[in-house]
């Protein structure tokens, strides 16, 4: 049927060796070039589903106009503070390693992104999503949906209590497994800062094998998606802790001298 996604059946037969060779070649070609790439490549053939889903023409540079220079407003009306705790949404304790993920959302100018929406979703401790199309034969946890939301605080800070997700298989190629990750959705002060990304856990052996993580060809850039284990967030007999700061792009609003002053003041606060 034509509505089937572009999941080329032949592609799923590719071995990890084939995929890893492609990834390695792209990495070598990147290392030989002199420019630095900080974002994922839209065209990254080892991620087979990207083949028919990346624009082939260059993005058009746009001078942002009024509506793009504002972001939608979210607040207490939209999000209850308890939505940041994914372990209390049901009648019992979810299975798995309880973790706290905390950090700050900043913009590219170093200013905290305050009062903005963060949404998060993830697989459970067995690597299964509470989604009808996830048919990976791992147990669902009746006490874990894997969805959370929060509004960032005055310093751009956020904190979620959740369960450490597990790796899970997907059908990009034969024996393809995703590193454990948490999806994050973020808004800035301009709509031009809107982004969705994934947070990973330190030391994951699947990093080099994963075509999605590797869509970011610059090694330093992709390390920005890896959280830090932080014992000061870890709490006694309760949860291990991770720190992950997120940097959005800069605001495109007309720059005034006072903006520069604000940015400087924020920097000194921390």
């Amino acid at each position, binding site marked *: 049927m034509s509505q089937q996604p572009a999941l080329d059946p032949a592609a799923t037969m590719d071995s990890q060796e084939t995929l890893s060779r492609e990834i390695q070649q792209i990495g070598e070609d990147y290392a030989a070039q002199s420019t630095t790439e*900080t974002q*994922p490549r839209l065209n990254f053939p080892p991620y087979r589903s990207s083949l028919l889903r990346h624009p082939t023409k260059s993005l058009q540079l746009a*001078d942002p*106009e009024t509506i793009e220079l504002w972001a*939608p*407003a979210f607040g207490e009306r939209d999000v209850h503070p308890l939505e940041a705790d994914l372990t209390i949404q049901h009648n019992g304790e979810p299975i798995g390693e309880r973790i706290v993920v905390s950090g700050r959302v900043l913009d590219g*100018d170093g200013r905290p992104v305050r009062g903005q929406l963060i949404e998060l979703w993830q697989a459970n401790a067995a690597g299964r999503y509470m989604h009808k199309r996830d048919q990976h034969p791992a147990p669902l946890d009746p006490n874990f949906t894997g969805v959370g939301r929060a509004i960032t605080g005055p310093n751009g800070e956020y904190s979620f209590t959740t369960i450490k997700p597990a790796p899970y298989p997907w059908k990009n190629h034969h024996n393809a497994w995703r590193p454990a990750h948490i999806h994050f959705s973020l808004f800035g002060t301009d709509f031009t800062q*809107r*982004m969705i*990304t994934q947070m990973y856990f330190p030391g994951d052996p699947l990093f080099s094998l994963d075509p999605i993580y590797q869509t970011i060809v610059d090694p330093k850039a992709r390390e920005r998606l890896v959280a830090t284990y932080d014992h000061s967030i870890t709490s006694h007999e309760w949860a291990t802790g991770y720190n992950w700061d997120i940097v959005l792009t800069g605001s495109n609003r007309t720059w005034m001298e006072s903006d520069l002053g604000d940015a400087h003041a924020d920097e000194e606060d921390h």
Partner: protein
Amino acid sequence: MAQAPDLKLVPTPGQTVGPFFGYALPYEKDSELLAPGHPRSIRLHGTVTDGAGNPIPDALLEIWQPDEHGVVSQETGSLRRDGYTFTGFGRAAVDNVGHFTFTTVNPGPTEEGQAPFIALTLFARGLTNRLFTRIYLPEDTEALAADPLLNAVDAERRDTLIAEREADGALRFDVRLQGEGETVFLAYPRES
């Protein structure tokens, strides 16, 4: 416009939304910026297709727009809609045949003589980072002809940014990720 200074921090890379956002990002009345059937409401709809022309069944779109008077709302309540407050934000997951529908109003010009548009963000499995574009209204030909972005785009691709008006007042806007009629997607000066 004053030249913005270089970024001090390197932005975090984006990643694909993946296929399983379905129980996390969609919410009740997410695509209804105002109630369907409201006298001011119009339908904004279209299909998202891939390079083979096939509909993408796991895409998510967001719109952000001024009201019909060109006012940019800063009201909260986009996630828990009361049915009355126009917040200007909407989110729609496509259906099994790649089709999306928003209920909204025609955006007004935020400044006199400016061509009104709706800002659009697209997410999908297989799309490694979000894409931005604009949906312009077809009517105000003078403002469209003077619009700086439309004038910067190759003439033959310009129409991919302009919605079609249907007989019942609905706006039709198809998104083509690649191939014939590939939609013009945007980058902003301070992206990275």
